[in-house]
């Protein structure tokens, strides 16, 4: 009996019970808030990209429209995506667009300012199929493209006949 309930054993039991209770007590508020933060939503094939695009541009179900737009473009030339250096939203939007643009080859161009005029002027329009602006201003000399909410614009470069 003595060996079964020695002081050491009781201390051992109290220590580990205390640690277990403390671990659970500290965690519960965090886990509860994490678990109840979002409601259950219907899931679709493009569930995640739709959420990202809605968060970045405010547009619902934009992934499907982006995919159909890219599918209508010739595959031989790359899509140039301009993103703003230091802007996490812009680079996130750019990478999501690159993800959806597959199987087109893409080129991600990170620029310092918000006007990619200089970088665009260096691009040969015959060698790209579209230009994407992620939270960047389209130069006035470029014809307007399709706008998705706020911050995403895709200008399709038509082939010269």
């Amino acid at each position, binding site marked *: 009996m003595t*060996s079964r309930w020695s002081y050491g054993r009781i201390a*051992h039991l109290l*220590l*580990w019970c205390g*640690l*277990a209770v*403390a*671990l*659970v007590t*500290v*965690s*519960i508020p*965090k*886990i509860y*808030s*994490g*678990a109840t933060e*979002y*409601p*259950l*939503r219907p*899931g*679709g*094939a*493009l*569930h*995640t*990209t739709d*959420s*990202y695009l809605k968060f970045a541009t405010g547009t619902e179900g934009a992934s499907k429209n982006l995919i159909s737009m890219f599918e209508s473009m010739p595959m031989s030339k*790359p899509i140039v*995506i301009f993103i703003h250096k230091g802007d996490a939203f812009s680079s*996130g939007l750019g*990478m*999501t667009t*690159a*993800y959806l643009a*597959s*199987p087109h*080859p*893409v*080129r*991600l161009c990170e620029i310092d300012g918000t006007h990619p005029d200089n970088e665009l002027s260096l691009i040969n329009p015959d060698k790209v199929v579209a230009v994407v602006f992620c939270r960047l201003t389209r130069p006035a000399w470029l014809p307007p493209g399709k706008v998705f909410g706020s911050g995403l614009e895709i200008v399709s470069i038509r082939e010269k006949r």
Partner: protein
Amino acid sequence: MNALGLFGAFGTLFAAGYGLLALLVRRSLQLSLAEQIAFSWLFGTGAVSLLLWVFGFFANGLLLQGLVSVVCISLGMVGWKLKTPSQIRRKPRWFEVVLTAVITIEIAIVFYLSFVHTLGWDGLLNWEIKARYAFANGGVLPAAYFSDSGRAFSHPEYPLAIPFTELWLYLWLGESNQFCAKTIFPTFYLAGTFLLAAFAVRLSRRTWLGLLMAALLFFVPQITVEAGCASAGYADFPLSVFYLAAAGCLYCVVEQGNDVFFRLYAACLALLPWVKRDGLILWIVAAACGVLVILRARKPPLSSLAFLPGIVIICAWRLYLNATHALQAADFLPFNPETFRTHLNRALPLLSALVAEFYSLPTWSLFWFTVAVAFLYSLPRMRDPGVVALVVALIAPIVLYLSLYLFSSWPNYLDHVGLSISRLLMQVVPVGFLLIVLAVSRRPEKHPQQVEMPNRATCAMARSERTAVVELA
């Protein structure tokens, strides 16, 4: 239709895994149902992803899916023939029933969370992207993807266990589906919980303690709700489950010198570098622990063949990346003594960042404090090679990961630490729980009579090879 596709994909994954498990165990070890499910899942995902990659060299589309399915079903049939003996069940005590109910609810919550949340950033753009592109290309990743500088952000050099498991779901669903892809991650949580419970029972010889540890895993916020958690679609938690399996099996090898556990260890070890690039570090640590065990247990030299499958996978993947001219990640500077010397001044800030991370209650609750207490408990038992192996398996990856940041090429390396350290630490959390089990159970070596508990899941049962009860069955 989606449900049917998912059923087919999961069924073949489990069948392949069960077949491999049965081949490895060869009726010479009693495994609980939980262990059989967990190992079947791990081996199933590993085998199917490897088969998709290998068969993808000469087949694609329906032929590829058909070939892999045939192998999975054949393995399943082999498994059925070699049926792994299950442990004899005894009547559970009331608190074991309560703990089992708690674990069931926790698993259900993790499934719920995975459906509520989207795939995390890396989950989509590092892992799912490969599954999607491979699916669009008939089940084979286009060679151009590896050298596409526009998609270098998606780390083409990362291995394919997770994306090709997602691809397997897509092949069965007939479409790439970001929502359904998430189902594999709570399944890894389920496998991790089952394995943690099973190993804890084997280590402590107390069923309630195993169940309690599995229940407590849920209460580490980094695993449940934090960025990069088990349901976010990242590879870190699956990697932690493979690592737990390798470390747990190794401990059981030490305990009883059972060859079956060594074979299971070798299989889990081989898959570590196939799950994530960081798995290479875990592979090195687990292999070093394996060498320690081989030497201490005086196992035959042939035991070192256990490292061969992993080496083959590492070399094959490296060769493949070279052949496809894959772009290399630019996150780290060249690993050489010169860089090490010039960046040694980062050591102290890195150490303080690590300590700050350990103290982060919203991320870890009191987990690391509890592990620290368990570590102190393990100090007097350092003569036991099993305990040494577990301590090394827990601490060495942390030290190595921290040293990696000395070579970070990020303009602010502490940003790099802040972004990834919690996920890297998560990879050793289940092993940390095993150390806690050892400390809590504090097995009374002085009183061997207390250890004799028939009909319990222990490493000791494995020693008996085919027990009389199994023979009878």
